């Protein structure tokens, strides 16, 4: 790179910034199209089918909303942790443990009014997911243990634990040997509004709450400062360990709520498949949304369309639904790459020489 020099950019105008990002997304779609072509698939047909499959009918729109709800809430959880540069990749586990705690209420508590049951289940889910996030946060705060590996391993422990419940400890004896847990009683199910369970209302409320929390509260501000620079936070006299633990409790608690909605609104019982990769996809969506809660809402809707459309093309075009993963990955690769051009600009070396001479 002798003919090019790099220089840090000053603040870019917002318009240029979004132009670069839109360009990156466009390029990523072209690139995914090329991958599809390589496998003898017509990219335009695949993309068209994804869109038809996600918003083509009322039923499919419902499905897209149902898929976007856990994604939105988990993204909120992830972004609270990521704001602090705490790499919580344990969303899957936190979803499952939240779901487990909520299921405990639904399956083993005596019958109670629906409103009370749902509130109890949400509280249980926040505690379940929160504890699962608290454990790595505690070790990070106290002993500086790397949280990436820790949260990730907690995912697998949770998956194995729920598998154990589903296939052994809580297996429904009335299911004739089929490995499933008994369905929830009627009073533990989320009610529907306009044909979809009310999880989407909870999701929108949480988006607003998290946005207000990060923008306008002291704790939210402290989380951002710790993420920007630990030194600054320490110099300002913040209790960093406490902030890490609180932020992770919020992060895990949110993921737990996503789990509760999955069991109470969608699956109607606890099953190991309920987390369905949302914990990982949420990392992509949170990053694409630049860790902003409101943007996350929109990014997640687009990604839910990709997921729902991916499931649809599997049936319709006989293309594996994992195509959606390839497209998601490609989009994020390009957006990650484009961030470089937001921060730096390339200057031909000749011009530097010339400018230098003129200055002299």
């Amino acid at each position, binding site marked *: 790179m002798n003919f090019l020099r790099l220089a840090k950019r000053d603040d870019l105008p917002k318009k240029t910034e979004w132009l670069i990002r839109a360009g990156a997304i466009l390029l990523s779609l072209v690139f995914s199209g090329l991958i599809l072509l390589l496998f003898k698939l017509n990219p335009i047909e695949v993309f068209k089918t994804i869109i038809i499959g996600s918003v083509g009918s009322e039923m499919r729109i419902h499905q897209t909303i149902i898929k976007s709800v856990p994604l939105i809430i988990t993204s909120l959880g992830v972004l609270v942790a990521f704001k602090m540069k705490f790499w919580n990749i344990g969303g899957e586990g936190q979803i499952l443990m939240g779901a487990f705690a909520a299921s405990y209420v639904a399956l083993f508590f005596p019958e109670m009014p629906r409103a009370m049951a749902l509130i109890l289940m949400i509280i249980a889910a926040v505690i379940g997911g929160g504890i699962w996030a608290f454990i790595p946060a505690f070790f990070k705060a106290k002993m500086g243990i790397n949280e990436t590996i820790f949260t990730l391993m907690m995912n697998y422990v949770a998956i*194995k634990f729920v598998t154990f419940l589903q296939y052994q400890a809580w297996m429904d004896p009335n299911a004739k040997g089929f490995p499933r847990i008994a369905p929830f009683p009627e009073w533990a199910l989320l009610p529907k509004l306009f044909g979809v369970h009310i999880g989407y209302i909870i999701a929108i409320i949480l988006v607003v709450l998290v946005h207000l929390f990060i923008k306008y509260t002291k704790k939210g501000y402290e989380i951002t400062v710790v993420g920007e620079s630990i030194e600054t936070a320490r110099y300002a006299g913040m209790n960093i360990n406490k902030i890490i633990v609180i932020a992770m409790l919020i992060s895990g608690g949110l993921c737990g709520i996503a789990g509760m909605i999955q069991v109470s609104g969608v699956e109607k019982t606890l099953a190991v498949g309920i987390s369905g990769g949302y914990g990982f996809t949420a990392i992509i969506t949170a990053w694409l949304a630049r860790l902003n809660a409101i943007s996350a809402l929109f990014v997640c809707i687009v990604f839910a369309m990709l997921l729902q459309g991916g499931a649809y093309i599997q049936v319709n075009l006989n293309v594996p639904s994992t195509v959606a993963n390839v497209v998601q990955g490609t989009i994020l690769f390009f957006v990650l790459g484009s961030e470089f051009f937001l921060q730096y600009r390339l200057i031909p070396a000749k011009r530097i020489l010339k400018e230098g001479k003129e200055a002299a």
Partner: protein
Amino acid sequence: MEGFLATCIVAATPLLFATVGELLTEKAGHLNLGVEGMMLMGAVIGFLAALKTDSALIALLAACFAGAGGALIFAILTVTLRANQVVTGLTLTIFGSGFAGFVGQPILGSMVPAKTSAFFVKRAVPLLGSIPFLGPVMFRQDIFVYLSYGVVIIVAFYLYRTKPGLNLRAVGESAPSADASGINVTLYKYVHILTGGALCGLGGAYLSLVRVPIWQADVVNGRGWIAVALVIFVSWNPLKAFLGAMLFGGLSIVGLRMQAMGVSVSQYLVDMIPYVSTIVIVILSSYKKGKEKQPPRDLGNPYFREER
């Protein structure tokens, strides 16, 4: 006992390739969390190559290229474009799992063809194979396992006994100082991230070609992540990686063994052991002191010369 240890080695081999691959990457100062993805890419492409050509060597080469291809995406983004390493690595894992599912769809359930699997039968090494105890455990394995021994020895020698190995460690410790002393930092990073990816690809191919010779999309099943943890566990030392991989390989099969011996344990709970022990080990390794046992100092920091 010998039989059990020999099985441990088989279970350890994919972990060993991936661990040494990630170790090289981290020595260059980059934390690549895409190991799982690169293993999957190696697994599916290696399998596909075997299916198309029925040549074990071409399959191995293809797996190397697939892993290195994944690593190239990571290198372009994190070395040249200075993207966040954690997020890029995770994306690579998601991309890799999608890639394996997508590319592997038409061959789901296919078997490794005869000539290739015949190439990977267990063969005793002359002389070494007849050493008591060590022989049956280590030297009556398949060629792929012997390749992993070779990789460990070569990487250890390279890191601690050669000039480029020394330079590499310098890059990982402090990219600015390495740059100032005339080392081509970018080149070193690219070469070792790509080599690391190729090794991860081989680890994946061991799973799809030898361990489970029928193609299934979830063949890697979290082993890539265990490899990331193993690198910490063995404190960035390739020779220790051999023992670490054996320990973890052993843990992953101990449940079946216990059941075979009539000990009544829940398979689902036993399946937790490798993950719980990884957590315990990561915690314990934080107690280790000494310069040799610390991560490369510049691990995860992007290097921007003009910002020095």
